[in-house]
């Protein structure tokens, strides 16, 4: 037993232990709670940095505990895991700061932060899972830990949203369990392996494998909000803004998308999946989701709902990149895990700022808000350009690789999807920017809070500015050695060559 064997578990403990302690804290122990939260996430970040350095230099980090005869609980830090872990760790720290500012003075904060930390633990667990049963374990834990956050406000609407959320996700979870056990009875292994572990199976199993693939996609598709499994996401926007920001824009939907990546790459293997003929329908489904959700977004006046439909559309870029089944498109898909997270969390932070500072929830109320809150809206603008895919933002890098990858794989129809998506994104985002910057502000905002000389509390302002900066930076320095793009290339290399 050496230190490296326990590091992955320790990483999960960084958020789990503070979370459990926080549950027991009295409501008014604000300082202790904040200290626990922040120290947990800072230690987490340091450990992640250490592991990134280690993996880059060829070290192995793996925790393995027996769970059932022949099946272990495996947490492993590979390049793909670390990509997701790093994203979660960075955004957890920022969202924690944001949430402390956002929830100041509101009730039930111990419960909120407790479950919040639990969600982060589950997300990190999902990222680091080394086999399917471990993945399933953390995936379901994520469902359970998000439920109390959706119903957090305790209204009838929130309870209903929670019910719908569970109905979708638990049925999805049931399908996953079915598929996983089925696969296990066929292969006797569930270990994630680069290029998959199924190609050795005989031809007579192919129909079963196609069915298993469909079950997996249906199960993960719920969280990844593939149409028609997306119904829970717009409803879940009832949760407090930090939850929408971190969980619904990043952790939960990403866990679904990440599951699809894992299944295609490390269970089936991209070549075997293509050979089975299952990747092409997946690409069509992703393309349809991208376009249809964008169309739905056009008609939403509620800002968070519009962002929710935009999330549905954008997350499918990841699935599309995987399903095109070429190395360059794969880079685009995998890197979008990070890019979409950075851009979308910026937008949700900004939406939360508008609601918390000025009481603005609807797009029709946003006239001239750029004059009142210039920094927030500047961050928002960067996020919007990223979503549209304008250079030099991170969104552009994604679209570039997706487009190039599609051409290289001989699937030029994807170009039209990407172009259509960009147009639609422009159609539902640019009018907002026009309102914000070029219209006259109203005399009174719906519900204004005073923050003195600043436009809003610094705890609300700092996180979106940092994430907007990162979203811009990920595009500008994409060629650097430690950029998300560089990692994505490393991952694609491992899968394809």
């Amino acid at each position, binding site marked *: 037993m050496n230190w490296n064997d326990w590091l992955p578990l320790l990483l999960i403990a960084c958020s789990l232990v503070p979370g459990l302690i926080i549950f027991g804290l009295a409501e008014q122990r604000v300082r202790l709670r904040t200290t626990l939260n922040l120290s947990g996430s800072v230690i987490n970040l340091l450990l992640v940095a250490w592991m990134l350095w280690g993996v880059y230099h060829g070290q192995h980090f793996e925790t393995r505990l027996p769970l059932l005869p022949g099946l272990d609980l495996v947490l492993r830090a590979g390049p793909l895991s670390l990509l997701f872990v790093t994203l979660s760790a960075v955004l957890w720290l920022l969202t924690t700061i944001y949430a402390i500012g956002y929830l100041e003075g509101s009730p039930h904060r111990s419960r909120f932060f407790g479950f919040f930390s639990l969600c982060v633990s589950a997300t990190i667990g999902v990222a680091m899972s080394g086999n399917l049963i471990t993945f399933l374990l953390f995936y379901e834990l994520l469902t359970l830990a998000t439920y109390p956050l959706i119903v*957090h406000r305790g209204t009838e609407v929130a309870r209903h949203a929670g019910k719908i959320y569970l109905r979708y996700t*638990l049925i999805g979870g049931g399908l996953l369990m079915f598929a996983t056990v089925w696969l296990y009875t066929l292969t006797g292994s569930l270990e994630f392996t680069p290029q998959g572990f199924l190609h050795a199976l005989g031809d007579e199993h192919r129909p079963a494998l196609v069915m298993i693939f469909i079950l997996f996609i249906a199960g993960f598709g719920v969280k990844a909000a593939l149409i028609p499994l997306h119904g829970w996401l717009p409803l879940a926007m009832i949760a407090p803004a930090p939850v929408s920001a971190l969980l619904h824009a990043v952790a939960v939907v990403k866990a679904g998308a990440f599951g699809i990546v894992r299944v295609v790459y490390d269970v089936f293997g991209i070549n075997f999946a293509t050979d089975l003929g299952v990747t092409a329908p997946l690409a069509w489904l992703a393309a349809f989701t991208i376009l249809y959700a964008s169309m739905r977004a056009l008609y939403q006046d509620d800002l968070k709902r519009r962002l929710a439909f935009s999330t549905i559309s954008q997350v499918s870029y990841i699935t599309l990149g995987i399903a095109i089944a070429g190395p360059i498109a794969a880079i685009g898909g995998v890197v979008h895990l990070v890019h979409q997270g950075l851009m979308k969390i910026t937008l949700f932070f900004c939406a939360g700022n508008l609601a918390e500072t000025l009481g603005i929830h609807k797009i029709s109320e946003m006239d001239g808000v750029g004059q009142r809150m210039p920094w927030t809206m500047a961050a928002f603008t960067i996020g919007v350009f990223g979503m549209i895919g304008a250079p030099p933002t991170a969104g552009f890098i994604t679209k570039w690789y997706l487009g190039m990858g599609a051409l290289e794989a001989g699937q030029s129809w994807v170009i039209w999807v990407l172009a259509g998506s960009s147009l639609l994104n422009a159609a539902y985002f640019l009018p907002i920017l026009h309102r914000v910057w070029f219209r006259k502000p109203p005399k009174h905002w719906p519900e204004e809070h005073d923050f003195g000389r600043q436009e809003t509390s610094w705890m609300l302002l700092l996180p979106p500015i940092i994430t907007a900066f990162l979203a811009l930076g990920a595009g500008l320095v994409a060629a650097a050695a430690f950029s998300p793009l560089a990692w994505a290339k490393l991952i694609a290399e491992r899968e394809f060559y």
Partner: protein
Amino acid sequence: MGDFLLTMPWAVVLILLPLVGAIVCFLWPKNVNQLGLVTLAGVFLSVVGLGAWLLENGVYHHAVGGWNAPLGIHLYADGLSLVMLGITALVGLFVSVYATAYFDRVQSEQFWPLWLFLLTALNALFLSADMFNLYVTLELLGLSAVALVALAGGKAALNGAMRYLLASLLGSLLFLFGVALLYHTYGSLDLAILSEQIEASPTVWMALGLISAGLLLKTALFPLHFWLPPAHASAFSPISALLSALVVKASFYLLLRLWLELFWPISGSVAGLLGILGVMAILWGSLQALRQTRVKMLVAYSTVAQIGYLFLAFPLAMGAGVTAWNAVMYLAISHALAKAAMFMAAGNLLRFGGHDRIADLDQLAQRLPLTVAAFALAGVSLIGLPPSGGFIGKWLLLEAALMQGRWDLAVVIVLGGVLAAMYLFKVLGYAFTEASTPSKVTAVPVRMEWAALLLASGAILLGFLAPLILPLLAIGTPFDAFSSAQEVMS
């Protein structure tokens, strides 16, 4: 010390200790709570002692007073008995702690003797190796359980107790008829001796039918579950916990044991029937639970559904063998922990708000967080979500089903989980909202909240303990019918 551990006749202690405890509690009711807790602690340690013995020596048997079968009373313990004894002692201990805070003076004087008699019956049942003793323990179990239900008084409880009494007596009677038939045919009641001789004949089929029907009635398998919800829902909460967690499991254990050791050579062809009833129980129990408006009734119907899972193992064991039995035992012990915790949590919220109407739970998530957490954790295990004992059980069961292409059963296993999630989260959802009419609240003793929470955490912890528990279960290979029978002989 080590010698002491290995030389004590633990099985005898396990039966005598609660029996003596019951009598002492009955005769000197002054310090019942302390006496009862000491007894439970003693029982718990004895199970540990027996476990140490089994790990060292394999199967345990003990001829009481040195008289061997067919004349004497024969005690027998293998991994299966050990796990049942262990879960009984564990759940019993926590329920006892809970009960010390739950009952007032007079109630506890009535509760303790009955509960310790019940415990005696349970332990004796898990240790008996002949049909007549099994009958006696079954009868003692049924009677003390009925008396416990009736303790609550009031119309609903007495009604429930009456139905329960009739069902229980009928069940024992059917069992006794079956035993009489076997005795008439083979002239012995010792399981080991019978298992050597049993073969397919009309009499044996008849005995199998009678014994199974009696035990199914006591286990409340659909459609013989009609007595369970009123009895379990109207009893005092700690008693509901004991009944749902342990008492129905005891008759299930007996059925399992008899099918495994006595009837296995002939019963394979009717195993399918038990499977069908299990499926019906899962679906019907879950749908009924969904319709309930009160927490305790909902939890009671959930027991009806969960019992269904235990019976899926019978058809699956034909092809999957040990995997199916492991699955079902894991489900049984997880259910014991989770369901006891859930009834205790229901008792807490009844005490707190004076009612258990689901729609009026009134922000309990904030006002009674430990209890709601206990309910939620127990729920996770019942639904079969990871990480929990219920998940491990369902995983193994699903594996057993898919291994032999039983798609129908596999679908039901998953569907049952989704339905369970729907009815359990109905309760949890309302724990976050405000009630239209707030009710007066009474404080809940800390001990009651923690007892429920710790037991529920135990159900979660079981999700990580499979590498420890599955080898325990395998002691004496209880699931390998023939070899086990031969071992008893030698």
